[in-house]
């Protein structure tokens, strides 16, 4: 058990004038689950990194664990005191397999060699992933990787568990399992859990007071205000009302014949026929690791597939790469992958030069930037933006390119509710004006209602449109 006390913490990034955290004071009680939310770029990740000791503190005593600053705790005991689970599942491992990563963590804690195998099995069993023990980490799906990350934290027996948007790319069932495990850790093992998230669905039964981080200050909401915030995420609001089954009159733009997908030896999609329809917005949902992103990679010729894929009747392998890339574009799940330049302004200039500059006039771009709250970041290095800001910048860059078919892989990842609504307005109006075909993968359904017209579900290695029969 450990209480985390933060006292007059001010933090400014180098070469920046505005502090991200401004004279922050808060106490996270021991053995409790605390939920932290706030706008994208509001400093949630910064705060968690500071608590975890991954970013050096400006004043050593500002964050204390049961009264002791982390600097006073011997380095070997750090992982015992505080551990962190990251937003990006794949970037938190050093070793190749699940077992080796767990060994690595326990060796660091100087656990006796003979105790290690039992500790590994216990942790894997607690999370319910004993079957993953010998698997290669990079071949696991994002959800499985997050489960492994949790198992490692369990094995290390850390008192304070920090989670930075751990469910951003995770399907609802996996998210629920992980949440329940975290609750067990809180109530039975009295761990202090601090979790940052934008998507507030599923927390209502467990969280009394929501902590909101806004422009450097942290406010604890009252019980009523908290429930009000949660209400925006209840299943009612998440229903997609405009979804219909594809009609016979619709024309297919992308078509797969006996399309099959594999990851290594694992079958993801059993060979089947599949069509995406022009001018529609199709949402693809399905469990983590079921092959949604792999499908997108196949559609833009970045991955292998079985069968044939055609675009407007032509085999995509026979279309020149350059011209195909201009007609079918992908907004990658990781924003980093999309950017080619240094500053946001340079990225926008590139898109405007090669994209649809008749529609995206400088005035329109300026206006869109303003709507997305990115105006004052124009000259900033793009990699120093927060993950939510990067996501918005990435979307804008791809929209300006205006490919006939735009694939969006988790376009709402890391966005707060207000940003989601703005993004959706922009997407809807641009789609209507330019007649684009949008295909998107999203675990997060809030805000999507006005946009989505077809819903494709991936279940048991098979893709099926909602409302359609075989």
């Amino acid at each position, binding site marked *: 058990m450990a209480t985390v006390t933060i006292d007059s913490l001010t933090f400014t990034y180098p070469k920046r004038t505005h502090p991200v955290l401004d004279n922050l004071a808060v106490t996270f009680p021991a053995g409790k689950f605390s939920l932290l939310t706030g706008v994208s770029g509001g400093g949630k990740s910064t705060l968690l990194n500071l608590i975890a*000791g991954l970013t050096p503190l400006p004043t050593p005593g500002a964050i204390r664990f049961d009264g002791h600053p982390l600097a006073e705790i011997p380095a070997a005991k750090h*992982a015992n005191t505080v551990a962190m689970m990251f937003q990006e599942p794949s970037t938190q491992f*050093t070793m190749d397999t699940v077992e080796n990563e767990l060994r690595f963590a326990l060796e660091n804690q100087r656990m006796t060699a003979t105790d290690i195998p039992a500790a590994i099995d216990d942790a894997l069993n607690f999370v319910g992933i004993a079957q993953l023990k010998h698997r290669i980490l990079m071949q696991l799906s994002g959800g499985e990787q997050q489960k492994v990350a949790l198992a490692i934290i369990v094995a290390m027996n850390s008192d304070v568990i920090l989670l930075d948007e751990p469910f951003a790319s995770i399907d609802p069932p996996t998210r629920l399992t992980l949440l329940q495990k975290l609750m067990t850790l809180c109530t039975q093992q009295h761990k202090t859990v601090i979790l940052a998230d934008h998507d507030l669905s599923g927390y209502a039964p467990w969280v009394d007071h929501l902590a909101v981080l806004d422009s450097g200050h942290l406010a604890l909401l009252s019980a009523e205000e908290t429930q009000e915030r949660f209400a925006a995420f209840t299943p009612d609001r998440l229903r997609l009302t405009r979804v219909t089954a594809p009609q016979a009159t619709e024309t297919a733009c992308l078509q797969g014949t006996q399309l099959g997908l594999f990851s290594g030896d694992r079958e993801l999609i059993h060979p089947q026929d599949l069509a995406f329809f022009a001018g529609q917005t199709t949402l693809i949902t399905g469990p983590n690791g079921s092959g949604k992103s792999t499908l997108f990679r196949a559609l*833009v010729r970045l991955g292998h597939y079985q069968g044939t894929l055609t675009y407007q009747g032509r085999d995509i392998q026979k279309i020149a790469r350059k011209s195909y890339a201009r007609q079918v574009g992908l907004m990658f799940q990781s924003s980093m992958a999309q950017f080619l330049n240094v500053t946001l302004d340079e990225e926008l200039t590139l898109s405007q030069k090669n994209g649809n500059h008749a529609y995206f006039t400088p005035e329109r771009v300026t206006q869109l930037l303003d709507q997305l709250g990115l105006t004052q970041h124009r000259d900033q290095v793009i*990699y120093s933006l927060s993950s939510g800001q990067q996501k918005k910048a990435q979307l804008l860059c791809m929209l300006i*390119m205006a490919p006939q078919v735009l694939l969006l892989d988790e376009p709402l990842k890391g966005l707060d509710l207000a940003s989601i609504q703005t993004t959706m307005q922009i997407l809807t109006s641009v789609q209507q004006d330019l007649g684009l075909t949008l295909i998107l993968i999203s675990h997060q359904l809030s805000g999507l209602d006005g946009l989505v017209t077809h819903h494709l579900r991936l279940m048991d290695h098979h893709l099926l449109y909602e409302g359609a029969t075989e």
Partner: protein
Amino acid sequence: MNPTLKLALVLIIALEISFTQVWTVNVALLVVCFILMIAYRVKLKRLLWLTLVPLFFATALVWSLSLQGSASSHFLIVIFTRMFVYVYMGGVFTQTTEPLMLTRSLEQNAKLPSKFAYGFLAAFNLLPKIRTEVATIRAAALMRGQVLHVWSPQLYFKVILVAMNWSDQLASAMASHGFVEGAPRTHAVTVPLPKWNWWVCGMSLVAVQLGLFWGLP
């Protein structure tokens, strides 16, 4: 055989044959390496690569040296076989050693600071990711109307940027799993260094020395 000892043996022999010109020893080493690779069931395709690539370069080198006319045929044979020995010994080492075991052995037997040992391992694990990343970057550029060739500086700028980002993430990942620079660690798997390893190592060195003395003019 213990990975650290094996690495040391390979390096010492390679160093010795670099400064001596006995082609019979080179050929003997080649035969031994070949037998070892067969014994450890190295894939035929890999074996073929390990033979054809140095064959091309060694032939080119010998051909260009012979055109100069000043090199003796003895020297040419030595150069030709030496190149093969380097590649084959490297092949034996890499094909029979797991990177993780080498890391553990370097940490435990050679007392290398764990920072280096695990840094090396992590870099090794990243190699396949780099290839996918390059393909992704080129595709991303095409979608933005920009063609990145293999020789485009922008491609390398981006790869380096991504790699730097990975190294930051890796440092965070290691720290968050309790890794502390210079702190003592326990070892879940101990890499054995049995007596016979030393004997094999010693005998091999003695045999190479004898061969070299024998063969020196």
